[in-house]
């Protein structure tokens, strides 16, 4: 602005020195030329061509008035209007630019929202499908287990306890008195058990050896541990993964029947296989 003014004054003095007869362009006209020049080089050329054209026409009128009437008030008024019209063109271009930017951002905003919605929808679908499959798998596993257990009821006692399904095999069928070597018939039965448990979704198996109360507690403890080990080894040989099966000797500490009768003692001599369920 200062430079412009200085330039104008310079021009004024210079031309005054040259010729006194030619009137000098008034400040308003100089300002209008500068404004129009800047506007025509701005985004207004593309975004506000109509307003820019109005400014141009007004400037031409001002120039014409200057040629015809010199720096009269009419020239100054027209020049002032041309200056303002050039500013209108710039402002309208700025408005258009902002409107376009907003429209684009608005469009992007909507798309982003739609994307987000679709992403969460598909995530939901995946979760739903996974849940349905898990439920289906669980139901199938339970069905398979109950079928397997039903087949076992012919050779063993099967009952459900809080710790899992408990398969009880009578000691008489498994071992000779005082021995921990499996009888041949026991091997057949345990093969059946292994077959039934194969492919079942259990967490682990626990083999418990139990004795009656006859003889010393220490001896019974050792015997029950050896018998549990024997059953465990055999089940492993039949395909039960070794890391999923433990053996424990319980001795005579957990009787299920009266140790004073022969029948009771027979019931207490047993091996229990606990099928520990998955969480």
């Amino acid at each position, binding site marked *: 602005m200062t430079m412009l003014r200085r330039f104008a004054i310079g021009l004024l003095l210079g031309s005054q020195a040259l010729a006194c007869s030619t009137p000098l362009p008034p400040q308003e006209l100089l300002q209008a030329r500068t404004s129009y020049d800047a506007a025509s080089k701005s985004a207004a050329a593309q975004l506000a061509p109509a307003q820019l054209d109005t400014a141009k026409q007004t400037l031409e009128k001002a120039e014409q008035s200057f040629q015809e009437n010199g720096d009269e008030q009419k020239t100054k008024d027209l020049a002032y*209007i041309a200056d303002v019209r050039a500013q209108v063109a710039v402002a309208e271009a700025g408005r258009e630019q902002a409107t376009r930017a907003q429209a684009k951002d608005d469009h992007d905003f909507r798309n982003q929202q739609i994307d987000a919605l679709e992403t969460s929808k598909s995530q939901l679908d995946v979760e739903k499908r996974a849940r349905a499959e898990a439920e289906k798998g669980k139901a199938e596993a339970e069905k398979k287990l109950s079928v397997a257990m039903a087949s076992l009821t012919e050779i063993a006692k099967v009952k459900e306890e809080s710790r899992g399904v408990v398969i009880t095999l009578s000691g008489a069928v498994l071992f000779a008195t005082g021995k921990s070597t499996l009888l041949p018939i026991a091997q057949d039965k345990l093969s059946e058990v292994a077959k039934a448990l194969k492919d079942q979704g259990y967490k682990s198996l626990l083999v418990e050896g139990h004795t009656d109360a006859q003889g010393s507690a220490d001896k019974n403890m050792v015997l029950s541990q050896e018998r549990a080990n024997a059953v465990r080894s055999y089940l492993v040989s039949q395909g039960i993964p070794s890391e999923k099966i433990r053996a424990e000797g319980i001795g005579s500490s957990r009787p299920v029947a009266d140790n004073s009768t022969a029948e009771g003692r027979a019931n207490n001599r047993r091996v229990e296989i606990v099928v520990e369920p998955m969480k």
Partner: protein
Amino acid sequence: MRKLCLATVMLATACGGAAVPQESLTAAKAAVAASEVAGAASEPNAALHLKLAKEQLAKAEQLIADGDNEEAASVIDRAQADADLAFSLSKEAGAKKEAADTHEQLQRLRKHQ
């Protein structure tokens, strides 16, 4: 003498003088009102041109009252230009603010996801 003067003025108005620029005055007043509605008063640069437009209109009305219709027409044209600029500047400021708001919302949404 005074009578003669008055007669001369009346003659000038009747024969050679321009008509009252009523149409452009009304249009310029409407443009001022429009820029006020657009919020020109709260936008510094727009407010300046709104003020100029109002001053020119007052001046034009005085000129019309004095019988100088030709000069009034020029002043009204200036007022019209100033009012139009005040309007455009207000609208531009509004559009920029809206654009900035939308942009901020978009950025927030992008950050959120």
